[in-house]
């Protein structure tokens, strides 16, 4: 699965080798005395959906936040699109951030703005659109994530949990990003809603050529949506690869994670 490359619309890249859009090397992150990550390596390839698993409090979200520059690292390098993020000036960083879309766990929609205005925030900031097109583009993004048009003028507090997730995804997609970070996108959704969300992410990956970095606990998402899985334990990535690799691993945490009652019930036949 990992060698299967999706061609991004308009992208110039064409190669048989996987092209790592995010390359993390020897990363160390510590909060005071407490070391969260030490010697962590990870590659995210273009056009894949990478599922990132790990126990609670192991620092899954911290890694995402470190890549996004929200948390400081004490050692190591992070390369995004082949550029070391430490060596970028302010302007280059801005340009880079435009190629990211982030969906936070609680949505992080601005509560003072309507859903439509939320989606338009990055568009207003970075693009020069006529007011009519600005509205239409916001409606298009809403439609793409499967929200009804009447959700546009609602306040975030009027939305259900699933709708908040979708609206947050629409905002993350506002600038047609190349990499989308999803922090537990299906948590708090019912199984049907979660399955729909997985399908939505896969559709968007195909149509928009997205690379998706997904922190998740949802075993169904791992089985159905993710091309590769990376597992975080003992302050580093202990295994990365397809589901088969995960199942074949000897690491006790992985054995417990994928060998538990809940996991076995979902195993594809043959395992």
């Amino acid at each position, binding site marked *: 699965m990992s060698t299967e490359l999706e061609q991004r*619309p*308009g992208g110039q890249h064409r190669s048989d080798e996987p092209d790592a859009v995010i390359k993390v090397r020897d990363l160390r992150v510590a909060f005071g005395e407490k070391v969260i990550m030490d010697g962590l390596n990870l590659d995210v390839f273009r056009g894949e959906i990478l599922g990132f698993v790990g126990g609670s409090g192991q620092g899954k979200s911290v890694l995402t936040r470190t890549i996004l520059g929200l948390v400081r690292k004490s050692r190591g390098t992070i390369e995004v699109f082949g550029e070391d993020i430490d060596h970028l000036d302010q302007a280059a960083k801005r340009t880079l951030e435009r190629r990211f879309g982030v969906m936070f766990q609680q949505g992080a929609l601005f509560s003072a703005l309507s859903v439509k205005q939320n989606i338009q925030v990055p568009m207003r900031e970075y693009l020069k659109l006529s007011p009519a097109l600005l*509205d239409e583009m916001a409606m*298009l993004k809403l439609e793409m994530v499967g929200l009804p048009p009447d959700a546009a003028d609602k306040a975030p507090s*009027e939305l259900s949990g699933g709708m908040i997730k979708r609206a947050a995804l629409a905002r993350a997609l506002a600038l047609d990003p190349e990499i989308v970070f999803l922090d537990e996108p299906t948590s708090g959704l019912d199984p049907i809603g979660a399955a729909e969300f997985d399908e939505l992410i896969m559709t968007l990956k*195909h149509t928009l050529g997205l690379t998706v970095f997904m922190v998740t606990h949802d075993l169904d998402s791992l089985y159905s949506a993710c091309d590769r899985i990376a597992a975080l334990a003992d302050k580093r990535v202990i295994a990365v690869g397809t589901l088969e690799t995960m199942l074949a691993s000897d690491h006790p945490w992985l054995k417990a994670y994928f060998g538990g009652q809940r996991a076995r019930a979902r195993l594809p036949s043959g395992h």
Partner: protein
Amino acid sequence: MAGRGAAAERISLRIMASLDSAEPQAVFRDDAGTLAVVLAGSWSADRAPRVEELAHEIGERIAKVSRATLDLSAVVRLDTLGAYVLSRLKTQRAEAGGAIEFVSQKPEHTVLLAEVDVHDCSVVPTVRHFGIVNVLVNIGKAVVRFGRDMVGGAMFLGEVVVGSLGVVLGPRKFRGPSLVNQIELIAFNGAPIIMLISFLVGCIVAQQGIFQLQQFGATVFVVNLTGILILRELSVLLTSIMIAGRSGSAFTAEIGSMKMREEIDALRVMGLDPIEVLVVPRILALIISLPILTFISAMAGLTGAGLVAWLYGGIGMDTFLARLQSVITWKHFAVGLIKAPFMAFVIGLIASIEGLAVKGSAESLGRQVTASVVKSIFMVIVVDGLFAMFFASIEF
């Protein structure tokens, strides 16, 4: 067909050769009744102004012919915005009875065009009323809201009374530590700023009084003026307004943020009455603290007045105190202190009601805190006016 394709290819090659930047471009070519439009460059969001302009131009040119083709072979980059603009052209043309065909697009463009194609993204304009209708609607809404506030306030008053009765009848439910904690926050921490403000206002009133009374040679009456004014009105009003701003807003924010995070509901399902747990201790703490603060405020105010009378009016401290003793009866002193617990009750009640009225968003919390302070100060002044009439009629 083959000839047209080759022609388009030649044009697109020429465009690509001349194309250094990725600026979006469109070249028009009339081909036996069919308008061939060759698109090139980057049709993406960062080139939005040019993309819109070109789309408009293409739309106008296409409107004159029955059939048109859009050749996407030389498009370097196409994103959702570019795809949407092109697909909107096609839809609009189809509605007008014409036809547009996309040709030689890359496979990923086909997928993207299909994704944005089905969507109807026209924005439904919202209906707005203007002028007199709007004014009337707003007045009506305000009246209804005022009525609801009154009814809601009365109902809440009942709940608080029931909650307090519960505490009185079952002292086991009395939350001592919570009460002491609140008294510390309200009275102890609030005392310095209230003393300072009262002191300054005492100084100012005395200075103005002396300045005006000098003209009649009645400087010494400034003692009557400041004594009665501070004890009867100023101390309790200043304290109430400060407490409404300081502690009332804090109550609303505390209770409101608990409401936002469903903590109030959590209390309810545990069988705890939020009124009893959160509201009663706070209101009780206010009722105990406000008379204390009013007394402190009065003393600070009189100190300020005495100081100014001495330094500015030439009235010695012993004269000031002797005169104060003769004109101020216990009645004046009592009037201020009697009013204080009622003010405390009004502030506590409004702060709690507004806190419990908070809805899901942080914005609503901010709105409710503002409403709490404004309503508290307004009601404090109204209640003070009622007391003034009451005391005047019983000649107290």
